């Protein structure tokens, strides 16, 4: 390959691309490569010509709008989302046994380090000093537990948030209700996430769980509406509770979307497969011990029972007369 020609060709292509020169000008600048240069640049321009295919403007703008909307509607990942992603992508956490062991070890370490604060935090409500610790432990559990259990944990935690709302309302600490309601909404969203729709609908246990989910949401709504009727609730808390009712209504609507042909009926209890309990082993037959006589099948009624020798003089113990002490 001619190095000089390569260099000249590069300069010409650059000049043409930048619009600084024409093909003729370029060829004239390098008469020693005149013919070869013209042929090569002709080929290049032909390639550029075939590359220009018309684009459907409708496709271009529809795709653009869809992508821009995705950016706008995207919720930035929280630190917990990142943590959960890290857990998901870490191979050690994929093993179920390892997961349980890790949870136990972390719980033990936290208990040791915090001196039982984790246990004490269990009853904390928003605004309490230990409430962030309670949230941390919950997030840790959700991060480590698998996705199927995640839904159940979301449900359980949603119920906890509701109890916290009730507790706060009873104590008149309305300022914390908003925090609990936000978390409640987060858990309801987590429990009704769209990928449930991909699961098998004919799975009885799953239907059962979804049925319970629906019942739980209804129960939550009832509690929230009861709180709303309470005259003591201040306006700020009232707005938060109304927001929570709206959130749980949305959750119920999401469930309905999962089952467009009708919500699965409560499955009969007998249809739930029984756990696989191992059958007991057959009882071992008693072996006959030599020297022990067989019992008679039937004892004759008229047989006279005689006391054994040496017991003739023993009298029956007399019963005490009257009421026992302490009783009338």
């Amino acid at each position: 390959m001619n190095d000089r020609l390569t260099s000249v060709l590069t300069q010409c292509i650059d000049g043409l691309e930048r619009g600084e020169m024409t093909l003729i000008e370029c060829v004239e600048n390098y008469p020693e490569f005149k013919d070869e240069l013209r042929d090569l640049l002709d080929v290049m321009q032909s390639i550029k010509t075939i590359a220009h295919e018309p684009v459907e403007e409708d496709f271009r703008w529809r795709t653009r709008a869809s992508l821009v909307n995705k950016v706008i509607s995207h919720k930035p990942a929280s630190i917990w989302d990142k943590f959960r992603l890290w857990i998901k992508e870490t191979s050690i956490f994929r093993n179920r046994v390892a997961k349980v062991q890790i949870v136990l070890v972390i719980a033990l370490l936290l208990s040791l380090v915090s001196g039982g604060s984790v246990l004490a935090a269990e009853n904390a409500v928003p605004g309490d000093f230990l409430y962030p610790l309670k949230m941390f432990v919950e997030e840790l559990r959700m991060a480590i537990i698998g996705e199927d259990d995640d839904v159940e944990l979301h449900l359980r935690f949603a119920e906890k948030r509701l109890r916290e709302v009730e507790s706060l309302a009873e104590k008149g600490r309305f300022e914390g209700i908003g925090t609990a309601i936000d978390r409640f909404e987060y858990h309801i969203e987590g429990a009704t996430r769209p990928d449930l729709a991909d699961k098998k609908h004919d799975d009885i246990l799953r239907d059962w769980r979804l049925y319970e989910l629906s019942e739980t949401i209804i129960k939550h709504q009832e509690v929230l509406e009861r709180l709303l009727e309470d005259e003591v609730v201040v306006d700020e808390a009232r707005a938060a509770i109304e927001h929570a009712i709206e959130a749980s209504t949305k959750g119920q609507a999401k469930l309905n979307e999962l089952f467009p042909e009708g919500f699965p009926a409560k499955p009969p209890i007998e249809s739930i497969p029984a756990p696989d309990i191992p059958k007991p082993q057959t009882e071992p037959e008693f072996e006959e011990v030599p020297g022990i006589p067989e019992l008679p099948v039937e004892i004759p009624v008229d047989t006279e029972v005689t006391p054994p020798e040496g017991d003739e003089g023993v009298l029956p113990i007399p019963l005490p007369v009257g009421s026992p002490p302490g009783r009338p």
Partner: protein
Amino acid sequence: MRQLNTETPDNVLVKRTSQGYGNAFGELYDRHFDSLYRYIYFRVSNKQDAEDLTETIFLRTLETILHKKKNIKNFRAWLFRLAHNILVDHYRSRKFHADIDEVEYLPEIINVSGENSLDGSDRKLLKDAITKLEPDLQKVISYRFIAELSYAETSEIMGLKVNHLRVLQHRALKQLKYYLSKDFKNHE
């Protein structure tokens, strides 16, 4: 909302996209759509596939920016590397070629439609000639003259030095010139 202009570098737009600015990604899309679409269309020679693949590439790009918060230094080079990987997957799924190395070659199906200075038969001849090139030379032609990437971007995607790339560019044009010449046609 911050104003964006044509001077805003790609990596700044990537950063702003990751912060949730929709117009930043819109700007990236506008900047790179045409060249990416041209490149994809040239490789697949089918309008529907080209549209589907272009959309997939932008969607994957967006997901990477939003979820992985990846620090992309040279966005254009990164985008075309992703495009190449998605094309490889596309060929695999269509079973055009069994061997991954052969994916580098253009498919035999040539689209001869179009409205420009070259007539249908010339276009077909040229595309046929390009399919005869070695994979690396095809890549140079695709990136440099179809997608209109710079030397720096092409060299980054192909993992070559710029000088080496210039030599390959020269060789590719020279071979194409030969494949389009009367000598080659007579030889065939």
